């Protein structure tokens, strides 16, 4: 047992519109990290070879296929030691109860819905999420708009017509109310996910006369939206905040208008702290793939490192012991310290940062006017759900 | 003479500018066998289509057994006891000959049967086979109908029309496409059992030998109107009928 490699099952989008902007960087991020871990080349505190001394092997499966069946196959057929993955909230919700039922160590990577530990699995043992919930994106966005003095008298939103977009918009408008911005909502657009054509929606936004526009679009949809909205001058007319905008920066450096407000769903990538671990990750990734990692890659690395930290803390191969060690764990990542602070100690909290898009002197994309909000400012406390917390006006938020 | 079973009064059918049939007043009496002849496009099929509800007359009325059935659907007329065969045979091509007949039996019972019990009873199978034998189709019973030659399809079409003892049966060119030497035999097969049941039979026909041989009465159509109506011999010898329908040679 001891000498055997640890098998990780890694579901990421290998097909469909999410595969390019999300699946690929996630797979790449996992690959470089695992390679470095096996070679013992990761800086401290992760300089122990592999995970707890054992080599790590990864099996990538397509998240776009039937998630429940694929999850079962990983667990029951391939008998992996842990599952690390999932980008879509829908898939996370579908596999979450299964993780508990099959008693399988599972780390969710990027999905955003707060429901996972609020209602889907309220008494988790084996299920963890090392990425923060989507709540931070919306709360942070409103705070950023306020703090930078954007006129928020007329606000519009464009979000994908599914849970992610709906929740993001609900949290955003909830935060507007909680912070008493007195905004009028001029239009709320919910185009179908992966629609690709937003001519009419852009017209609606243009004609709505909004000063500020919120969008949680991600992947190809966000990119298409930028391509269609920017030439028509939407970004000149309104302040547009794109909560996942960072994932598009490398890809559309010349098309994102300067001044657009960009988020990365956490302190990743351009918003990451200047630590040895962060720089190591950025450089190693870039050396391997020719471009810096976008935030999905950071999040994948964060998940694997979290698992490693818990495993080594438990110093045992027993899933129950690893899970126990993972609970309420505090661990270092390229994006700073992560605390498994809510969801009974199974859900990470992290801060959020926003900035405005700019090209530096060499013409490389970067962000300016960055404001960071710490974890306690944008996350609900452990005893409250996100919705309750926003509704109640962020009680206990610590924004210093 | 008893009351007519079918009465049409001043039936007219127009398709846009085309008058396919007009002033069609006909009475059919129970048990009689009637031939309809006429040039191509004279309105023969249109007449049958109106009686069986496929076409709604532009004006005029149709009564069957004293009841007004003008404009009622093919299904209603079928249930009332009117059956027909078609100029272009209407069959279930992918099914076998026996299956075709079984469908006909089941369909005839559809109003009563529905979902409750197995439709394919041994009794029905026997009736089905009997029907096929009667129409000389027994040897084909397990052949898919679509692969049969036209003539056989035609016979099957008629066999299906004859199922469930209709009171009035209308055959549209039953013998066209059937080999000449079989035409008479086929007509005999069709007519004998119907006569035994005292059914009324109308058939459209271009072959005057068949008309002479099987019809007591003949109606000749021309350009949508009735040109002549009477005992077969008389009708066939009328000048206009000879001129427009039969042509010089036949007597």
């Amino acid at each position, binding site marked *: 047992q001891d000498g055997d490699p640890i098998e990780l099952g890694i579901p990421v989008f*290998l*097909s*469909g*519109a999410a*595969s*390019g*902007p999300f*699946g*690929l960087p996630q797979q790449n991020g996992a690959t470089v990290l695992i390679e470095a871990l096996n070679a013992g080349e990761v800086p401290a505190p992760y300089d122990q070879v592999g995970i707890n001394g054992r080599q790590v092997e990864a099996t990538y499966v397509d998240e776009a296929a039937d998630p429940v069946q694929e999850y079962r196959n990983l667990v029951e057929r391939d008998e992996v030691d842990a599952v690390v993955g999932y980008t879509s909230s829908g898939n996370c919700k579908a596999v979450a109860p299964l993780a508990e039922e099959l008693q399988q160590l599972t780390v969710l990577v990027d999905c955003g819905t707060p429901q996972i530990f609020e209602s889907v699995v309220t008494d988790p043992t084996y299920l963890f999420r090392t990425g923060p919930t989507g709540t931070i994106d919306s709360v942070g966005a409103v705070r950023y708009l306020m703090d930078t003095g954007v006129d928020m008298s007329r606000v519009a939103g464009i979000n994908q*017509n599914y849970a992610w977009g709906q929740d993001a918009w609900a949290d955003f408008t909830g935060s507007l109310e909680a912070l008493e911005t007195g905004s009028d909502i001029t*239009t*709320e*657009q*919910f*185009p*179908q996910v*992966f*629609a*690709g*054509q937003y*001519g*009419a*929606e852009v*017209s*609606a936004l*243009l*004609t709505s006369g909004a000063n500020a526009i919120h969008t949680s679009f991600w*992947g*190809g949809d966000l*990119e*298409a939206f930028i*391509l*269609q909205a920017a*030439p*028509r*001058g939407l970004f000149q007319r309104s302040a547009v905040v794109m909560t996942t905008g960072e994932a598009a920066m490398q*890809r*559309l450096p010349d*098309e994102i208008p300067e001044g657009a407000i960009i988020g990365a769903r956490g302190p990743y990538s351009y918003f990451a702290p200047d630590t040895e671990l962060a720089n190591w990750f950025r450089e190693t990734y870039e050396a391997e793939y020719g471009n810096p990692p976008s935030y999905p890659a950071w999040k994948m690395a964060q998940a694997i490192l979290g698992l490693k930290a818990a495993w080594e803390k438990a110093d045992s191969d027993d899933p129950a012991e690893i899970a126990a060690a993972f609970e309420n764990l505090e661990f270092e990542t390229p994006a700073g310290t992560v605390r498994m602070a809510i969801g009974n100690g199974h859900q990470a909290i992290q801060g959020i940062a926003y900035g405005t898009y700019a090209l530096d002197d060499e013409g490389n994309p970067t962000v300016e006017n960055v404001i960071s909000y710490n974890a306690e400012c944008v996350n609900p406390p452990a005893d409250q759900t996100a919705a309750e917390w926003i509704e109640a006006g962020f009680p206990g938020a610590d924004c210093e | 003479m008893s009351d007519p079973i079918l009465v049409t009064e001043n039936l007219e059918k127009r398709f846009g500018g085309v008058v396919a049939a007009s002033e069609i007043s006909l009475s059919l009496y129970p048990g009689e066998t009637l031939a309809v002849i006429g040039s191509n496009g004279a309105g023969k*099929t249109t007449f049958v*289509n109106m009686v069986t509800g*496929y076409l709604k007359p532009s004006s005029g009325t149709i009564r069957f057994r004293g009841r007004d059935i003008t404009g009622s659907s093919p299904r209603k007329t079928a249930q009332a006891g009117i059956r027909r065969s*078609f*100029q*272009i045979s*209407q069959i279930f091509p992918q099914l076998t000959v026996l299956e075709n007949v079984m469908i006909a039996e089941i369909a005839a019972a559809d109003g009563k049967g529905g979902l409750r019990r197995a439709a394919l009873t041994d009794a029905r199978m026997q009736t089905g086979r009997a029907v096929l034998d009667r129409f000389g189709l027994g040897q084909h019973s397990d052949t898919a109908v679509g692969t049969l030659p036209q003539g056989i399809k035609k016979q099957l079409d008629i066999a299906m029309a004859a199922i469930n003892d209709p009171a009035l049966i209308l055959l*549209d060119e039953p013998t066209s496409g059937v080999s000449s030497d079989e035409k008479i035999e086929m007509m005999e097969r069709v007519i004998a059992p119907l006569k035994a049941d005292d059914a009324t039979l109308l058939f459209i026909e271009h072959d005057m030998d068949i008309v002479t041989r099987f019809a007591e009465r003949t109606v000749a159509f021309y350009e949508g109107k009735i040109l002549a109506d009477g005992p077969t011999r008389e009708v066939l010898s009328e000048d206009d009928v000879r001129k427009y329908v039969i042509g010089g040679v036949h007597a």
Partner: protein
Amino acid sequence: MLKFTAIMLDGMNYAAWLFLVAVGLTLIYGVMRILNIAHGAFYAIGAYVCASALGVFYAAGLPGALAFAVMGVVALIAGVIVGLVVERGVLRFLYGRDEVLMVLVTYALFLILEDAVKLIWGVESYFVYQPYAYFGFVEIGGLPYQVYDLMIVALAIVMGIALWFWLERSRMGRMTTAVVADREISAAMGINVTRIFATTFAIGTVFAVIGGVVTAPKIAVTPGIGVEVIILAFAVVVIGGLGSIPGAAIGAIFAGYARAMSVHLAPAYELFAIYAVMAVVLAIRPHGLFARASGRKI
């Protein structure tokens, strides 16, 4: 008023795009009785080919206006090649098979082509946004509108009329109608059915590819872009009446305006506006708006 302008323009714009894709589908169905799901893959191939070709083109630093010529040429070449390969390579062995089965065949082709695209172009997105911005925008009633979008409308109108003229007026078109009605007898009357089929399929494919080519500059060219397109195109074709070119135009306009109106007036229902229109049209006219005449059966 501004809203009205926006609805008019957006509806027209969306209709034009839908028409370009749907018209090829209706043509192929009309002539060959194949409901071609692979049409969506053709659309995607169009987008990728455009992205690649323009990528090379811009890398070579050629003058921007030429890009449009490049787009036209690659659409034609790619459409004809892909169309002929699929028709000659697969479909012709299956002519005469059940209509539903043919749907599955094209579904299988769709799956194969989708992955082929991934194997060729990878899963990374491609961007060729230059043509979209090339002409800039004009203000129409206070609403900035891309000239490129207006050009797509013009393109759809021109291509639609050309196709319709070809079908209605030309000898080839007349023969196509005959083949639609009866393959076998058409052959007996001297029509080269094989050629008609190949030509039709290639033309239909070219339309799908054009749809993809003109869309590429507006989107992130990504795996999976062909999936939604195909079902929308189906809806358009069914609303209009399968196999009818004017039907596809009307269907596209219905669908385009249904969507534009819901976006501007009731954004919550955007997702199924088109299906609702389709259901209503079919409920009222079971065979779509332009149903084809069928022969006398009895």
